[in-house]
Every structure is written in structure tokens, then in C-alpha cells.
């Protein structure tokens, strides 16, 4: 008996020795947050950074003016309060006092305006400020944002990650090194660009309580399986996960948190039938709604991580209307009928773009189009080309990110120019344009109601062929909890808390 114990002790001693000499594995203490992210930080300059996966990086070193919460509300951070003018063309913002940047510069109205101007000029951040006329310093802790026209999305986008404040002296050099006022400092000695980023907690940060982790590491790991392996081997404790691995995560006792992030389906570009006449016929588009079995696709390809719906408004958020979901229940015969009615009993021919990321849905489309007699020619291209070229095709398979704000959804899915929507066509359809116009004029509850009305109209017109809304899934070890935010591919550090 005692011999067995000795043997066990010897074995565990060896195991200890092996573990202890591996610093990468050793510090498993609860004080450290180790995030496995999908992409590397796009840029340390908030003006050039992407919202998608940059959240954890940027929210570590920068404080934003406003932050978006999981429920869609906006939290004051460096801006303590804000108010629209009566005509909603001007916003007045009060700023937090007593905040200094890590380099010693003081955060005040001058600094905020300098930053906002920098962001307005930025290639990526400009999307938030397209309607800004000018930023004005009112007094030391107040600024005013004058708009050229009413803009219901600016605050939402600022909260999403377009209002990070950097030291005004360093605005030109942010691409090389971040310079913010955030809760953490980038530890350049321990960080390896492209591979791992380490952050040290700033002792006297004004909002220290929101950021309980002493030490933060973020590992960009492109490959989902590699990320999962890293989590299995204990190298990370929060992971941007592949829903495919949920059963194993449950087995490991990890926390699993999910929230819808984007819709999957067909984006019709050519509602007016400029290139493919058939698409101008609402019956054809409706047929393409009936023809796809969203639930089956979600279960087979999306590992069931999502919600079946035919709308682009995130499920359960204002603007979404559950009663619309039955409109295009899977019915291939109905689809054939509608096509025949529209005069396309034998289908028609289209060319569609294809890129590796979308390849997982390609077979389903091939299959359905085959059934309907629609002849598809595929143009293969890489993601870079896809983003340039996809909207030049009459329709394409899409995964388009959603927003947790009805006005933002209306704008970003329908009315504003986006890579996936180069020529917003809603104006060509008076019944739709009128509804959009009244939604844009309304405010508050009225606006939500009007946008829901637009949603109904869009669904009836089969503006898209939405199969389902896909969820982003995050695994975390039992002592950590992640609160996903629709609109961000990866939530901010404030949304990752000890449990």
C-alpha cells in the first residue's frame, strides 16, 4: 500500500517537474485572463482598427467615450452624459474629469475633439462620423458634435468601438504603439506581435473595479482547432470557439456563452433586375426564401448554434417580429410554384462569387438551385476579392454582421452604403422608401414601431433570403464568464468577468 503511494508521489513529482519548468503552462492562477482570439489586432490606431475582433485589444489600452452593453444600452465611460438637441442634429457631451493618459497628457475637451477629428478622418472609423459637420469644444469638460443631418447611429457606433480616446500628442504614431488611458498597459517586452500580447494592470485607473484581472494575455490564433487545443491544454482560458466543439466544452465543464452575431443567407443585390431580370420579381425572391431549409442548414453546417428566422434584426431585439417567422416555412413545392408563376418554371442562369469562408454553405445552394433549375456559375476568389467583387454579382452567399440597435440595423442592412450593399436600392421601391422615411423621422418607441413595420415590408418583399442567425460562441473556464455583444465579434474586456 505504502509502496503504491510512494510510486504515485514519484510520478506526480515528475509531472510537477515537467509542469513547473514550463512557464507557458505554469501560471494557471485565477488572476490571469488568457484570451484566445481569432484575429490579430488590425491596428493600434483606433482610426484604422476594425470593430470585429479588435475589442479586447483596444479596450485594454484605451477608454472609449461610450461603451455598448450586451442589452444594447450605452454605458458612459469617458463621456459621463450626452444629450441630443431638439432637432437631433447636435449632441452635447459631458466628459469625465481627472483622467490622464498613460503618457501623462490630460483628457479634456480639447483632447476629445482632437481624437474625434482623427477618428473622422480614419479609413475605418469614419463610418461612425459620416454625418458630422464639426466637433466643438464647449468648455473644459464639454464637447458638442454638430451633424449635417439627423443621425441615429452615431452614438451606437461610438459605443461599438469608434470612440477610443488616445493621447492627443501621439495621434500620429498610434500605429506603432498604443497610447491611451485604458485599464491596462501593453507590455511590449513580453508581447510578440502577431502571436501574443500581454497587458499589465494600471494600478490607479479610475475604473479599476470593472477590470479585476491582474494580468491579461491575448493570443490571436487563426485556426479554430488550434485555438481549441490551446484551451484544452490550458494555455488560454477564454476562447472564441467553434460551436462544433460545444459537446466537448460541456464535458470539460467550461462556461459556454453565445449570442447571435450575423445572419446567414443570400444577399440579393439586384432587386431591380438590372442584371438578372428574374430577381426583380418578388415571387422569385420569395421562392428562394421557401426553398431553403434554414433549420436543417443551421443544424448541419452551423452546428445548431443559432436561431432560425427570416429577418435581419437580431432575434429578441427591437425591430424583430417573431410573427414574421412563419412566412416562408420550408416548402420546395411552393418555391417551384412561385417560380412557375413568375415565368421561370425552368429556372434561370446566374453567376455567383465564392470564397473559402463561404464554401461551407455552397453545397446547400448548389443543391437547392439544382432543384429549382437555376443554373449557377461560380467565380472562385479569395476573401479580399470577395469583399470587393461580391456586391457586383446579382446575389451572393453572405454572412453579414448584425447590430443590436434598430436604427443601426436599418441603416447598415438597408439604407447606407456598405461593402455588401454598394447601391442601396430601397429608394426604387416607393412602398418601402416611404416606410423608411417615416421610420427615420420618428423617435423613441414610435421609431421602433416604424422600423418593425419596415421589417415586415422587407420580409414580405423577400429583400433577402435569410436562413438563420448565427451565434458567436465563447468558451471560458468555470471561474470566468463572457457576455457576448451582438455587433462585436469579440466583446470588450468589461464584458469578461470572474464568475
Amino acid at each position: 500500500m505504502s509502496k503504491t503511494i510512494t510510486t504515485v508521489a514519484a510520478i506526480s513529482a515528475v509531472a510537477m517537474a515537467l509542469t513547473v519548468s514550463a512557464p507557458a503552462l505554469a501560471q494557471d492562477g485565477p488572476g490571469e485572463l488568457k484570451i484566445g482570439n481569432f484575429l490579430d489586432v488590425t491596428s493600434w490606431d483606433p482610426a484604422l482598427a476594425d470593430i470585429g475582433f479588435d475589442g479586447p485589444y483596444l479596450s485594454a489600452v484605451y477608454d472609449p467615450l461610450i461603451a455598448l452593453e450586451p442589452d444594447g444600452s450605452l454605458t458612459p465611460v469617458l463621456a459621463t452624459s450626452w444629450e441630443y438637441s431638439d432637432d437631433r442634429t447636435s449632441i452635447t457631451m459631458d466628459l469625465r474629469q481627472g483622467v490622464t493618459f498613460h503618457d501623462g497628457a490630460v483628457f479634456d475637451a480639447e483632447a476629445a475633439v482632437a481624437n474625434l477629428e482623427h477618428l473622422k478622418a480614419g479609413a475605418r472609423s469614419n463610418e461612425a462620423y459620416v454625418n458630422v459637420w464639426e466637433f466643438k469644444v464647449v468648455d473644459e469638460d464639454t464637447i458638442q458634435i454638430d451633424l449635417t443631418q439627423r443621425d441615429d447611429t452615431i452614438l451606437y457606433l461610438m459605443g461599438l468601438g469608434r470612440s477610443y480616446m488616445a493621447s492627443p500628442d501621439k495621434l500620429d504614431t498610434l500605429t506603432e504603439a498604443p497610447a491611451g488611458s485604458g485599464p491596462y498597459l501593453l507590455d511590449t517586452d513580453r508581447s510578440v506581435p502577431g502571436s501574443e500580447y500581454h497587458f499589465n494592470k494600471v494600478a490607479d485607473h479610475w475604473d479599476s473595479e470593472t477590470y479585476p484581472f491582474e494580468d491579461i494575455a491575448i493570443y490571436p490564433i487563426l485556426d479554430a482547432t488550434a485555438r481549441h487545443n490551446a484551451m484544452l491544454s490550458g494555455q488560454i482560458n477564454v476562447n472564441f470557439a467553434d460551436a462544433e466543439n460545444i459537446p466537448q466544452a460541456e464535458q470539460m465543464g467550461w462556461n459556454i456563452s453565445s449570442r447571435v452575431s450575423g445572419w446567414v443567407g443570400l444577399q440579393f443585390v439586384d432587386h431591380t433586375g438590372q442584371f438578372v431580370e428574374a430577381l426583380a420579381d418578388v415571387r422569385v425572391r420569395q421562392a428562394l426564401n421557401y426553398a431553403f431549409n434554414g433549420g436543417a442548414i443551421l443544424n448541419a453546417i452551423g452546428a445548431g448554434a443559432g436561431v432560425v428566422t427570416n429577418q435581419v434584426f437580431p432575434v429578441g431585439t427591437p425591430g424583430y417580429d417573431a410573427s414574421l417567422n412563419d412566412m416562408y416555412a420550408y416548402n420546395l413545392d411552393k418555391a417551384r410554384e412561385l417560380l412557375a408563376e413568375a415565368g421561370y418554371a425552368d429556372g434561370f442562369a446566374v453567376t455567383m462569387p465564392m470564397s473559402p469562408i463561404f464554401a461551407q454553405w455552397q453545397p446547400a445552394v448548389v443543391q437547392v438551385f439544382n432543384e429549382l433549375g437555376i443554373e449557377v456559375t461560380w467565380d472562385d476568389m479569395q476573401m479580399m476579392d470577395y469583399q470587393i467583387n461580391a456586391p457586383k454579382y446579382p446575389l451572393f452567399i453572405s454572412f453579414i454582421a448584425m447590430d443590436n440597435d434598430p436604427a443601426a440595423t436599418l441603416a447598415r442592412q438597408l439604407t447606407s452604403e456598405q461593402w455588401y450593399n454598394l447601391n442601396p436600392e430601397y429608394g426604387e421601391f416607393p412602398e418601402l422608401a416611404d416606410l423608411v422615411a417615416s421610420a427615420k423621422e420618428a423617435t423613441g418607441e414610435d421609431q421602433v414601431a416604424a422600423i418593425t413595420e419596415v421589417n415586415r415590408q422587407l420580409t414580405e418583399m423577400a429583400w433577402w433570403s435569410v436562413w438563420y442567425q448565427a451565434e458567436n460562441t465563447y468558451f471560458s473556464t468555470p471561474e470566468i464568464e463572457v457576455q457576448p455583444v451582438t455587433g462585436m465579434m469579440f466583446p470588450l474586456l468589461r464584458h469578461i468577468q470572474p464568475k
Partner: protein
Amino acid sequence: MIAFIAKRLAAGVVLLVAVSVGTFFLAHTAITDPTVGLLGTTATEAQREALTIKLGLDRPLIVQFWDWFSHAAIGDFGTSWRNFQSVNDQIAIKLPVTLSVVSFATLLTAFFGITLGMIAGLNPNSMLDRMSKGITVVLFALPGFWVSLVLVIWFAVNLRWFPAVGYVQPTQSITGWLRSITLPAVSLSLMGIVVVAEQLRNEVIAVNKQDFVRTLRSRGLSQGQVIIHILRNACPAALTMLAIMFVSLLSGAIVVEAIFSLPGIGQLINSSSQIGDIPVLLGITVVSVIFVVIVNFLLDIALGWINPKVRVK
């Protein structure tokens, strides 16, 4: 000797120029408008145009070429189009990672390839030879990334002997560094071991048949001493293989670097080619050709030392 070095150096420079010119024009032909890949989809036409001008892409290609070439000639590969950081710096960060892994892989290949090849070659058609041939065929047939995955699952996820992903700098921890490069190096070395062992085996069999080996034995030399004679005569081909492997892995370890999430040259190539960051791609091309030139030079010296007859030519 000096003439030899000068000649090799000149040949190397010519090669370097030719390959970089070729790659420059190929890349610019293939990647026509990098601005979308660089700016993302939210950028306006004006911003893209501004970037085009900032990057100098509006100039005639030949002018762009001369601009790049004249800087590259003095060792300045310009700045990345993506993050405007110096290409030299980026390569300097990534190169040690890849060099660590590839050097370790080459060492493993040399050790196991030579051992297996010698054993098999000295005992042709023996059980050992057949076994090593069997192993060889299996390793050759298994796709490299498949092996990597199995290694990760066994040794990183289940046993936790090695990290599953990532790279530890030797300055932080030597043992951590060795652990972080072991699995990738092993998976990179398998194919090389196969090739080197096979090559060496055949050479050893050929050398073993030569008259001088019998004469050496007739002089009473021990088996060990005779083996050293055989090895020295048989190793040039295997050594050449090792050199080729080392050089080609420097820019060819993309899949393994992806699976182990190593921030090396391979990942830099992959990410840069996806967004069309031509200066980075060109910089890597030049650096890897420099390595080719250096390695070939060292190889020639080594081969000349091994077999002086080669030296005279």
C-alpha cells in the same frame, strides 16, 4: 579561395536580383488593387485613392520598381502597406521563430535521417532495413499537418508535455523555448528524415560496394572507423538534401506554423498574401534567397571539405 568566394558572391547577387525582379513583377501583375484588402470595406473611394497615392501605386510600374529596388539594394525593404511598419523590423521579429523551428527540425532530420540511413544501408535487406523502409513509407505518405495534429492531441492536449500553440522566446525561458518549438520541429522533420534516410541508405550501399572499403577493412580498421569512411563518402547527397530542406522550410512551413500558431515567416507570408501586402512578400523573398545563397555557399564549402576532389573544380 578568395576568387572562389568572390565568384560565388557574384553569382549569388545575380540570382538575388533575378529572383526579386521576377517576384516583383509577378506580384504586381497578380495583385492589381491592394487598397481594398488593406483598408477594409468601410473605406471610401477617396480614401482608397489617397492610399493609392500614399503607397505610390499611381506611378508607372517601372518607377515603382526602381524605387523599391534602389532601397532594397541597400537593405531597406520599405514599409508594410498594412501597418506601415518597417518590413525589416517585421521580418526581424518573425525570422527567429521560423529559424528556431526550422533549425531544430533540420537537426532532428540530420540525426535521425543519418542514423536510420546508415543502419539500413549497412545492413541492406535486413530486418532493420525493411523496418526502416516501412517507417519511411508511412511517414512519407502521412500528410504533414495530419502528423502535427496527432502530435498536438497526444503530447499537448492529453499529456501536456508541450504547449499546443505559441512560441516562447529563448530570452524568456530556454526550456520554454525548446518546448514551444519541439512539436512543430518534429512534424516538419518527419518528411526530411524519410528523404535523407533513403538517400543515405542508397549511397551507403553504393559506397560499401567500392573497392576501397574492402581495402580499409583489410588494413584491420574497426567497423566504426570503416563506417566513418563510408559515411564521409556517402553523405554529400544527404547533406545537400538537408540544405534544400532547411532553405525550403524557411518560407514553406506555413501550414505547420498555422496549426501551432507560431508567429513566423510562414504566417507573415500567409497574412500578407491575403491582403496583398507586396512589400512584405518581396522582403521575405529577398531574405529567403539570401539564405539560399548563404546555405549553398556553406554547402559547397562543406562538400569540398568532405571530398577534396569537388574542391578542385
